[in-house]
């Protein structure tokens, strides 16, 4: 899927509209019937700094960023354009061009704004020489001039899209349609003129290239969205009507989508003083009878440790989202990593009793968020959905009919007042909320305000009506009962027709690739290529992290001779979890790790796999291979 795929990268200054332009470009391709995937790279600043978005499109489903890219639209950094500021910004303004050349594939096309990049700049980059070496096609177009002629400087983006359309032979009507939907009057007119004029100007370039935009056709209507949307929509469809949060990248995305929509869904959103409060509010709302959620990214999630433990002990259902970014501490605030796995599983004192899912893509994010709500409220446990900067930032096409589901606003294991009238109470009339003798470990709760339901909940160990108790026998019985809930959850997941684990490749393959969460779909693309190259490979993407899918992973690992575990962290946290949970396979499991802030490209996994297998050259770039260490 490399030759015929368009991999278009738009680069410019942060705050230059790169994001919105790329979204429109991606939408136009989607409307043309193609499957689209975007990969986003940006710095932690409001304005300024180099940013890019890659858009990959094909007539077949695309589920990962590609290997490098083949079309660069370098807009230049308008934030660095003030000549007075030159000393301060240094070479910032050429970065959208200079910093994007290393990953541009052979035969690629470069469109740059000759109104911004002056001749000296181009010379300083040895652009022509490098173009010759790599068979690149250079297309300087004065985008700024076109933008100024019909409108304003900011319309350089539109001009760049017009040039792109001409070079890849794409009709401009989808772009015009999108402009028409977003704008009106003079602004709309100006943008369409800029688009057309740029399109015409680009027709001057006469060269042949291999990049084609295939023709596609969607049978049903598709939409372009990220996992942040999918998580939010999953929550809304589960009847979540309360969210509390504090802004932090990349978690802010879900918090924003929920906050913008909850009022119209008769729900409540609260932005609060810190993440301790955020999680505590979600607990308070849930306890009072709302389906509630909160969430954060690594550092903010650390503050939620206390309320998270309180939720486990008081058996207050709640769903938390952890949007990972590179750590430790502030780390790389706008870069991706899967290094919070252990943090999410074990943070807070005492033995963990929580459900944790790591979805890999839009569909899984929606399904698993709904499942997180189902399980949290059926078993009165906290459930956590872990995703990351990668799946937060990438947009994918998904058929909209996927979302045509029934809502599930049930509160789960909750008593009605009629049931409470029949339920067991102590001599003072307190409802026995925490009975020892329940088979699956899960006691239904009562909600404050219900007649006959009053009881105490406490972060202390407690006896049946909630009173604090340090009795050793009660302690053991209550611990065992709470942990029984995880076994019940595992049984329910194992007996379900749908698994959260995704198997890919031929059943009979003897070599394995295994990964979790957001890296899954790139691993699957790599597996396809390895199979096409004659290897005998299958892959497993794991989403259930607690309770761990022991049975499914065991079967997979028993069926392969070797398995490479691919994840974006430095210490192989998922490999470690697997060995801890299964207590074996240590001699089969090696690791391919990446923790430089960038997600894997498929070719990196292919190379990593080949080196593990053949002891060939270790892979280039910032990859780390760790051999199997035994049990």
């Amino acid at each position, binding site marked *: 899927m490399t030759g015929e795929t368009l991999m278009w990268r738009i680069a410019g200054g942060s705050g230059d509209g790169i994001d919105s332009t790329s979204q429109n470009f991606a939408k136009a391709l989607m409307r043309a019937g193609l499957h689209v995937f975007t990969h986003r790279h940006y710095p932690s600043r409001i304005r300024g700094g180099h940013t890019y978005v890659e858009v990959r499109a094909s007539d077949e489903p695309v589920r990962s960023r590609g290997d490098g890219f083949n079309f660069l639209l370098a807009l230049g950094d308008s934030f660095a354009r003030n000549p007075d500021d030159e000393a301060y910004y240094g070479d910032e303004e050429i970065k959208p061009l200079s910093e994007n050349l290393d990953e541009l594939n052979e035969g690629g096309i470069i469109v740059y704004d000759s109104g911004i990049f002056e001749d000296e700049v181009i010379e300083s980059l040895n652009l022509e020489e490098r173009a010759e070496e790599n068979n690149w096609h250079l297309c300087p177009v004065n985008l700024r001039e076109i933008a100024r002629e019909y409108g304003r400087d900011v319309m350089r983006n539109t001009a760049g899209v017009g040039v792109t359309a001409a070079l890849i032979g794409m009709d401009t009507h989808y772009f015009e349609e999108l402009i028409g939907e977003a704008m009106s009057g003079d602004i709309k007119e100006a943008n369409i003129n800029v688009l057309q004029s740029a399109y015409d100007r680009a027709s001057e370039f006469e060269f042949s290239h291999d990049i084609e935009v295939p023709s596609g056709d969607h049978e049903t209507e598709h939409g372009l969205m990220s996992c942040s949307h999918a998580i939010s*929509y999953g929550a809304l469809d589960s009847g979540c009507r309360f969210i509390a949060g504090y802004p932090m990248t990349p978690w802010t995305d879900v918090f924003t989508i929920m906050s913008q929509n909850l009022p119209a869904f008769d729900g409540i959103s609260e932005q609060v*003083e810190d993440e301790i409060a955020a999680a*505590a509010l979600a607990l308070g709302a849930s306890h009072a009878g709302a389906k509630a959620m909160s969430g954060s990214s690594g550092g903010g999630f650390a503050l939620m440790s206390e309320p998270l433990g309180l939720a486990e002990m008081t058996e207050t259902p709640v769903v938390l989202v952890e949007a990972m970014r590179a750590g430790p501490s502030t780390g790389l605030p706008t870069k991706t990593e899967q290094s919070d796995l252990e943090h999410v599983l074990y943070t807070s004192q005492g033995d963990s009793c929580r459900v944790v899912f790591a979805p890999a893509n839009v569909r899984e994010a929606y399904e698993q968020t709904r499942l997180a709500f189902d399980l949290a409220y059926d078993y009165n446990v906290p459930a956590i959905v872990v995703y990351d900067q990668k799946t937060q930032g990438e947009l994918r096409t998904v058929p909209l009919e996927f979302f045509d589901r029934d809502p599930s606003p049930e509160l789960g294991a909750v008593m009605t*007042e009629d049931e409470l009238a029949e339920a067991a109470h102590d001599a003072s009339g307190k409802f026995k909320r925490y009975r020892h003798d329940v088979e699956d470990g899960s006691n239904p709760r009562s909600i*404050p305000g219900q007649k006959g*339901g009053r009881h105490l909940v406490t972060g202390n160990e407690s006896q049946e009506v909630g009173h604090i108790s340090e009795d050793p026998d009660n302690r053991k019985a209550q611990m065992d009962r709470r942990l029984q809930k995880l076994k019940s959850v595992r049984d329910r997941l194992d007996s379900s027709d749908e698994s959260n684990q995704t198997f890919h490749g031929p059943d009979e393959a003897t070599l394995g690739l295994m990964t979790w969460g957001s890296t899954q779909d790139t691993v699957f693309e790599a597996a396809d290529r390895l199979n096409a190259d004659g290897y005998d490979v299958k892959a497993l993407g794991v989403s259930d992290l607690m309770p761990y899918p022991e049975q499914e992973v065991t079967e997979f690992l028993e069926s392969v001779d070797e398995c490479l575990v691919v994840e974006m962290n430095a210490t192989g946290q998922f490999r470690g979890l697997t060995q801890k949970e299964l207590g074996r396979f240590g001699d089969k499991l090696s690791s391919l790790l990446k923790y430089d802030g960038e997600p894997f490209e498929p070719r990196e996994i292919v190379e990593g796999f080949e080196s593990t297998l053949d002891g060939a050259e270790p892979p280039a770039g910032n990859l780390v291979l760790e051999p199997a260490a035994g049990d």
Partner: protein
Amino acid sequence: MSAFTGITEDSESDKEAFTPGVEPQPTWCPGCGDFAVLNALKGAMVELGRSPEEVMLVTGIGCSGKLSSYFESYGYHSIHGRSLPIARAAKLANPGLEVVAAGGDGDGYGIGGNHFMHTARENHDITYIVFNNEIFGLTKGQTSPTSPKGHKSKTQPSGSAKDPVRPLSLSLASGASYVARTAATNPRQAQEILAEAIEHDGFAHVDFLTQCPTWNKDAKEYVPYTDVQQSDEFDFDVSDRREASDAMYDAESRLYEGEVLTGRFFVQERPSYDAEKRQTGEMPEQAVAEQYFDDSVEWRRAADGLLEKHT
């Protein structure tokens, strides 16, 4: 019809109804001021015609946190310093509940100080009782945020070099709309003030002086007390922020000189947070907690209007 019939307009109850019929008996020390809070709270609830099943009492950690064990209602004994965020969300999810939060001075003015400031600022319609005994009691007598300067303890062996927090002024500056101080030694006033605080629409903060005879002062040291509303020396308008501020300053300073000034310090009529939020259209007409039990609710889905922008 409400799914929560424990929530009533007016209920006939007595203090017995708010007293657990069986264990546990309070573990507070003899002579502890905490008994007075428990009594005053029961009395206030009876006075106001509340029933145990419409009250949600959220407590923090410490001797004061045990309040929810000895008071019969829906109780949430939470974690150190976090009673307020739990309490205010419960009130938002079900505004029909009578929500009271309680904790010690370390809980509210120390570890939970950030929540105290913001809950006051937002003016949530809840009552917050701070058991102020100027000491950490349960952990055996360490210096607390309200301990006087120079206070010696195992963790401040040479005497604290810190000035104490001024809880009333902090509350006023943060935005609380009802600020009062009462004392365990004055049970009649305590019940009156708690009843007023519970009735108040907005964030009502009661700094409740509770002697700790084991680790700090005994009850004798909180008498005589002066009710600022009864005293000729104090003639200030409780609705005037500047005058209230002066009176608070005096009460806070003079406490450490052995003079106990109690009463209402600030009472402001302004819309509570849920009312403000209703104004901006971000608070549903029907309580969120009621929606799940109401079969007539049509549950909107993402597919009902959110997908168009993705096409």
